[in-house]
């Protein structure tokens, strides 16, 4: 008997339509894998969508996919992740559950300051499911702290779905990510189907602790590191779980990671043009870092570079760690936001002189632009208000 486990699909997360479509393709590929592997059920450990209210076209594709596996008698058990929730606690999973496309297994009742989880039973296999949703800011930690663990000590094959980082198994890149100790997970489950950390993990503890990683990389760094998304197909052989990570290759990645120290912007352009070769159909990732010897970052001839790689599937560049000597990185001491802003403005003031009272104007603009939309204010009214304040404050 097999089952599939996916998490962190973040459907609708990419802004670029091509990558957004690729993300959806990864979801459909996972659905197809479920069919070809003839799994009994599919587990979704949170963050199916990137927002609580996903766009209609994304929703349509998801419904199509879920309907397809439902028609093949594959059950779907899910929990919501931190991205699936609106601040008021609403999630699109409720809609999908009401439509009979999946079952949300995060069911619990508070009993005398404790939280008693309720099992969901898969009628065909007899496997019991329980789970807890992920919530932003690790608020779900309070759920785990309050768990009535005794009530979970029932016999049978059990799977627990969760959406949170586990402190003991955080990858190095996620050192700063909020997490909780593995001891918070309830004992006695055979398989802990996790999500939230965008890197696969398969570890045997008292039960299997598994995170399939994202179904499709969610940003530049993830594309660089993971290349492809992944899911887990787990086989249960004589009560023993055998999880296996399955990659979902859709498009190849072409990576350029260039140290630009002591190079001019023209030099970097030349090297990039030379480095781009056989990029057809691939996602091209260009990461530039260092301090240019001369010229500015904007002097690098990206239009020519993009033209050279025009047959690629998509080109992305990351120049967040690329600086020019004309506009060097400014180091400021830690302080309040206001203090940091003030110091940055003062340090830049000595380098650029565009107009009089530059410091005051920049401070004013920062204040205006940090204003948020008022309760009940329409978007256009908000934009008009900000624009008016903006215009009034600039007196060259």
């Amino acid at each position, binding site marked *: 008997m097999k089952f599939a486990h996916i998490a962190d699909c973040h459907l609708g997360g990419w802004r670029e339509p091509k990558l957004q479509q690729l993300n959806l393709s990864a979801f459909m590929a996972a659905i197809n894998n479920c069919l070809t592997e003839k799994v009994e059920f599919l587990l979704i450990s949170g963050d199916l969508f990137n927002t609580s209210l996903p766009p209609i076209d994304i929703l349509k594709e998801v419904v199509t996919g879920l309907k397809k596996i439902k028609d093949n008698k594959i059950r779907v058990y899910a929990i*919501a992740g931190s991205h699936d*929730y609106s601040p008021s*606690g609403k*999630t699109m999973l409720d809609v999908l559950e009401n439509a009979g496309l999946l079952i*949300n297994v*995060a*069911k*619990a009742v*508070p009993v005398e*300051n404790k*939280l008693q989880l309720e099992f969901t039973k898969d009628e065909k296999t007899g496997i019991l499911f329980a789970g*807890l*949703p992920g*919530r932003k800011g690790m608020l*779900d930690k*309070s*759920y*785990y*702290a*309050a*768990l009535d*663990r005794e009530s979970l000590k029932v016999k049978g094959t059990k799977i627990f779905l969760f959406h949170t980082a586990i*402190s*003991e*198994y*955080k*990858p*190095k890149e*996620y*050192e700063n990510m909020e*997490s909780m*100790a*593995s*001891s*918070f997970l309830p004992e006695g489950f055979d398989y802990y189907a996790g999500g939230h950390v965008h890197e696969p*993990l398969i*570890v045997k503890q008292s039960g299997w602790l598994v995170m399939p990683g994202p179904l499709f990389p969610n940003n530049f760094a993830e594309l660089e590191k993971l290349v492809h998304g992944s899911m887990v197909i787990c086989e249960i052989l004589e009560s023993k779980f055998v999880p296996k990570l399955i990659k979902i290759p859709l498009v190849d990645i072409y990576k350029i990671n260039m140290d630009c120290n002591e190079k001019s912007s023209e030099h970097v352009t030349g090297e990039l043009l030379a480095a781009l070769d056989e990029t057809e159909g691939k996602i091209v990732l260009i990461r530039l870092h260092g301090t240019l010897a001369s010229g500015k970052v904007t002097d690098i001839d990206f239009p020519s570079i993009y033209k050279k790689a025009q047959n690629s599937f998509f080109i992305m560049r990351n120049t967040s760690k690329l600086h020019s000597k004309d506009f060097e990185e400014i180091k400021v001491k830690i302080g309040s936001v206001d203090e940091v802003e003030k110091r940055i403005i003062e340090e830049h003031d000595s380098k650029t002189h565009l107009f009089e009272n530059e410091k005051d104007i920049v401070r004013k603009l920062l204040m205006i632009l940090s204003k948020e939309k008022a309760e009940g204010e329409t978007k256009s009214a908000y934009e008009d208000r900000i624009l008016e304040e903006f215009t009034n404050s600039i007196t060259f």
Partner: protein
Amino acid sequence: MGVIGKVISGGFGKVIVRQKASEVIELGELLVSETPSKKLILQVYDLLYGSQLSQQNLELVSGLKLEENSDLELMDFSMRNYPLALLKGVLEIQVIPKMPKTLPIFFSDVRRLEEKDIPFFSSPKNPVFLGNLRSGTKTLNIEVCLPGDKALTHHILISAQTGKGKSNLAKVLLYKATKDANAGFLVLDPHDEYFGRHEDGLKNLKKTMYFSPSNPPPGSRQLILSLNTIKPSHLEGAMYLSDPQWQAIAAYSRAYKEDWVESLILEKELKVLFNEATINVVKRKLMQLLDIRIIEGKLVTKGIFSTSGGNSTVRDIVNEIENAKTVIIDTSSFSKNLEVLIGSIISSEIFKKYKRYKQSGQLKDKPAISIVIEEAPRVLGKDVLEKGSNIFSTIAREGRKFKIGLIAITQLPSLIPRDILANMNTKIILGTEMANERAALIASAAQDLTSDDRTIASLDTGEAIVTSSFLKMAVPIKIPLFKPVEESNQKINYPGLK
């Protein structure tokens, strides 16, 4: 309070007081001799009999009573026979308390110490509570606290024989300091007793974090460390290696950086050539210490070191301590060497981080950190340090500059080198019957305890003498029995659940 005796003779450091017949003076009791301008606080360090009758007459009278007439009584018994107490001045209070340099007035009255006599015992900033002031066997309602920032970074030694209350004291100290002092603690717990997995402990404090290698209770962390966190220097004190063996480790560390352990065990290539036997010995020792096996050419970890997890463990521990929390590491299932290694990895990281803070001028904003080591001679013993220094001896000698100190707990302080013992500016001395251990403590005490040898030997369970550069006098204390206070649970909502 009434007069309990009169100063009758003696000299500086040996004031003799005749006890009033209706009173009982105890060894270790604190008494006050007062003049209009100052108070002199004296402590009883010995008791003896005094009598107006000669020894010969006393022997004769006692013989008559024993052998012939049992009804025989001495005339004016209490007038002619009385206990004498030998006292030493411990504090002189005029405006500010200072070491006494005068004698009490001849024939002056002495009375018992009262709470109002020593208002300067009020709580310092970041208090580290040790116990209540004790006068003889009587416990006063005066809390004895040390100033946390200073006392913790200047190291604390807790010394006692088994059963005299070391663990209780450490629990009381840690519990109160975790709550009240802005300080971080790393506790290496070889008996798994401080968290209180199955008994009272620090578990109900929100500022406590517990790491255990096996079955940690909900909310606690499983102790898993990435193999990559080990640096060659961490092995100092945990493994004894020859020079060529150290060189081999250094060569692997240079060549393979953080993957050096795995590379050495798998005998990956090096540009420098080493004797095969040298590599084999290091490999064997490492595999044994770290509980590693090789299966089908791959490392398989069995113990707390892992190739797949524990990447952020050390960092998380250091961050928690830096946030003035108490981190307890259950080392009860570890070998001595493994415990030293774990302690060394974490302590080195703390030391390195605080050193950086000092360089960048941020140290003043950071809380003091104290590392609690049980059976301290294991890492600070003369025999250990003869083989080379380790991070704990470095902290003992230099930690103060970087706001890091040790709380060393031991039964055998005499095994710790004198210079380190002298660096421990606070010593909490519980009952110690072994003369050589008392001698080591007295010789390195912040106050003169030469006349307290007998008192130290007679300290009962829970009684202690605190000698500290941060106290005006050697203070007798009674440590209360550890009793945690339940912290109330807030009612919470559970949105997102069906």
